[in-house]
């Protein structure tokens, strides 16, 4: 099979389908942040350095609830611990690159860019570093712009949820699940993994906080996949 040469601009292009997701969720994050009392500057800085939608919602919510800095940091740590799994799943595709380069590429990893990358990058492709950088930069620029616009609007939209924006995040996850289910050749096993994840999450959530239940369910379901594939 001939190798497919990926490019920076190919990464930019492959990022485009996710942009509306970023725009709507970023917009929502900006509006909510402003509603919780954060300034436009603070929201912008979070989008540049933190760059994690769920974490930015949490920071805004916990700050306005008067939580301590330490408790906010610990919560964000647990919420983003899932990135360990995502980063590890992508790592085999970046084996040939330097640690410095992989640090830069990993720093901009999100649920969405991961979803696109895991479907697009195969052992049959080359120049994945350029492609990944193109997608990462496109995604984050859109995120920063969307949250800033949202923050500005936040001062005069009292209730953003009423426009359905709250469903942007679940819809994005739904799209990514369907894409990865359809894309791979292990449809039966993948379906079992997805189905068992639902059961594991519901059980785990009875005992554990949501962000831990996500990790526990994902680990258990991935092990289930290993067991049933034989």
């Amino acid at each position, binding site marked *: 099979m001939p190798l497919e040469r990926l490019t920076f601009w190919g990464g930019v292009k492959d990022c485009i389908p996710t942009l509306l*997701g970023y725009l709507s969720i970023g917009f929502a994050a900006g509006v909510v942040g402003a509603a919780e009392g954060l300034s436009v500057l603070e929201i912008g800085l979070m989008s540049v350095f933190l760059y994690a939608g769920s974490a930015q919602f949490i920071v805004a919510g916990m700050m306005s609830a008067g939580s301590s800095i330490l408790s906010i940091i610990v919560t964000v740590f647990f919420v983003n611990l899932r990135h360990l799994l995502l980063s590890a799943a992508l790592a085999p595709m970046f084996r040939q690159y330097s640690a410095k380069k992989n640090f830069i590429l990993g720093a901009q990893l999100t649920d969405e860019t991961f979803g696109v990358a895991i479907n697009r990058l195969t052992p049959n492709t080359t120049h994945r570093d350029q492609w990944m950088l193109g997608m990462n930069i496109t995604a984050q620029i859109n995120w920063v712009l969307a949250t800033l616009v949202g923050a500005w609007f936040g001062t005069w939209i009292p209730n953003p949820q009423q426009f359905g924006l709250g469903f942007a995040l679940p819809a994005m996850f739904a799209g990514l699940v369907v894409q990865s289910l359809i894309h791979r050749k292990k449809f039966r096993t*993948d379906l079992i993994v997805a189905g068992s994840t639902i059961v594991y999450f519901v059980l785990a959530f009875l005992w554990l906080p949501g962000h831990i239940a996500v990790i526990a369910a994902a680990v258990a379901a991935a092990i289930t996949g290993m067991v049933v594939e034989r």
Partner: protein
Amino acid sequence: MTLSEGFLWLLIGVSLVTLLPRVLPMVLITKFGMPEWLLRFLQYVPIAVMTALLVQAVLTEGESFIPLMENVNLLALIPTLIVAIATRSLLFTVITGIGAMFLLQLFGL
């Protein structure tokens, strides 16, 4: 354009605990390689994490389940999944989701 007191420390803290899980596997695993069983495990992680995040986003609110009979998310999820399967497009999927939720709320559900 203001920065509240303590915000910069908070920002540094949350940024670091977000950065580390994102970069550590990419930096370390590429250096040391991975055993075969871990690779087999990892190929199921994406779909498992995505599904878990979806279930959490649809079924829960804060730290409790949304009562099934009152869960508007499940209703909005139906057209969202249909469009996702039919078009395989994230763009149309997200538009459908937001639109469905907007309509459901408009009719007071």
